[in-house]
């Protein structure tokens, strides 16, 4: 009980700090915090697979990118925005998730990794190669932000919009994780065969988790398309997937707060490193090696270990 009140109080405090961000920070940093929120959602969606269901996917950017491209294509080819584009983007990401899930869930472990990796590259190659439709390498600039009754054009307005959408999404994710469905997913992570023996239809749970994760990743992708008013093939390439994966692991897989912390750190670090050198990809690689060697259970895991060591002398 104390834990629940504690986490509720922490949530309120974080929300209060976030609400104050536009008043306290320069627009550039308000934009950066907006990006952190979007990637926090993206990382959490991947954690639903990696941390809760035990399925390591190397192709999560596919869903993020498909949603972003849906927004851009609808707006720039058909002039469709907001009310139609947002649900359409979610539907596209969910459908892509369902197709990839059907194929990838034929396999486990390393095969699952390879298949998600390879299929995400197929999606990337379509965005990269189909120049007449997607502008290929150049990407698609000039997406107008949606207008749901009030304008989202300035940085502060878009920040509050993102905060609201991500906030609702996190509440939904928390509800999913706590539900009997979420508990079943954790059971599958621990032992697939045992859950099978208990009468759970393991495949159906994994499929649902995969499609849900794709839908939430799509939501993040849609937010990001409007955030940048631009989409490009780098939204769905392997570096994007790799960033999401390390956000989850750096923060701590199997928790919701971990990926959010990891996302904030990686977004901040990328911004900082990119302002100094062009070698972000190398830094990302080095982070992978360091995290794997020294913090395999993430920052949250380290804190938990530290507390346990203190309470059991």
């Amino acid at each position, binding site marked *: 009980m104390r834990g629940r009140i504690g986490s509720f109080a922490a949530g309120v405090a974080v929300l209060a700090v976030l609400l104050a961000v536009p008043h306290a920070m320069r627009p550039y940093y308000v934009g950066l915090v907006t990006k952190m929120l979007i990637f926090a959602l993206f990382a959490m969606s991947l954690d639903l697979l990696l941390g809760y269901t035990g399925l*390591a996917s*190397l192709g999560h950017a596919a869903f993020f990118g498909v949603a972003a491209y849906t927004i851009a294509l609808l707006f720039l080819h058909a002039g469709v925005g907001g009310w139609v584009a947002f649900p359409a983007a979610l539907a596209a990401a969910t459908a892509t998730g369902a197709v990839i899930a059907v*194929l990838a869930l*034929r*396999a486990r*472990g*390393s*095969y699952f*990794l*390879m*298949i998600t*990796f*390879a*299929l995400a*590259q*197929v999606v990337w*190659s379509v965005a990269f*190669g*189909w120049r007449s439709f997607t502008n290929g390498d150049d990407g698609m600039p000039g997406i107008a932000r949606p207008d749901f009754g009030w304008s989202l054009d300035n940085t502060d307005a878009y920040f509050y919009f993102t905060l609201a959408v991500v906030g609702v999404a996190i509440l939904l994710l928390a509800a999913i994780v706590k539900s009997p469905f979420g508990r079943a997913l954790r059971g599958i992570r621990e032992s697939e065969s045992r859950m099978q023996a208990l009468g759970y239809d393991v495949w159906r749970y994994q499929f649902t988790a995969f499609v849900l994760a794709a839908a939430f990743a799509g939501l993040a992708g849609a937010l990001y398309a409007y955030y940048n008013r631009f989409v490009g093939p780098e939204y769905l390439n*392997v*570096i994007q997937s*790799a960033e999401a*994966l*390390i956000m989850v*692991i750096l923060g701590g897989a199997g928790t919701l707060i971990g990926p959010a912390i990891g996302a904030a750190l990686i977004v901040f670090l990328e911004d900082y490193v990119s302002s100094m050198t062009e*070698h972000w*990809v*190398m830094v*990302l*690689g*080095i*982070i*992978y*090696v360091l*995290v*794997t*060697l020294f913090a*395999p259970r993430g920052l949250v895991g380290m804190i938990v270990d530290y507390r346990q060591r203190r309470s059991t002398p």
Partner: protein
Amino acid sequence: MIWVIHILNGVAFGMLLFLLAAGLSLIYGLMKILNLTHGSFYLVGGYIGLSVMRLTGSFALALVVAAIAIAVIGAAIERFFLRRFHLDELPQTLLTFGFLFIFADLSLWIWGGDPIMLTMPQIFQRSVPMGYFSYPIYRLFLIVVGLIIASALWWFQEHTRLGTMLRAGVDDAEIARALGINVSLLFTLIYATGAALAAVGGVLAGPVLSLYPGADFDTLILAFVVVIVGGLGSLRGALAGALLVGLLDDFGKAFFPEFALFTVFVPMAFILVVRPTGLFGRR
């Protein structure tokens, strides 16, 4: 006749893919590591070959130096990093993922962003007449080299003491260790050999496919398709998968240029549905 040329092209590309897939497959079979750094071994190997060519002009030397350099790098990665996470699949994959990015950026730094072709040795800069067409000798050379390496690997695996140890290790590393086989040394040896094969593939591919940033990821994906189709841990599977993917890729590019990747991935999806562990995979 055009068919024969496409088939030869496909087989030649398949042989290059086999060099990657064989290492990927052996490494996974023995130590259950999904080695994503394999793409880097291919690309950096090719680039090292390029530098040696520029310095000495010798293609043979380029092959040897690239293979040795990448074998040493591979051995170091296995000894100092992967070893710490024996049989712990996710951390190992993450490490190899990290190295893939580090090498990608490093080679962009050293060799620049423009696609570069390796010059092929003088003796291969000719074509043989073939009906109304003529066919470049170098591609025939690729096919021959691929076949020689495939036979050598098969002979090594079936008829040498080390190959027997390898098969024992693939079947059950614990029992192999208990029988007195130095599994630890075997791991490093096989990892380095796999890495060197990928480097040889990179140098051999240089004169026909060009080396460019991103070739590491592109080639890795195709090598994945090969082992998904053929099955991880099987040399026979790697060869069958490589030939199939090489042919599909070539026919796809020739007849459906805009959907070239789909001619590779649709059959992969089909095989996954029918046989999730690949044509020759175990379990």
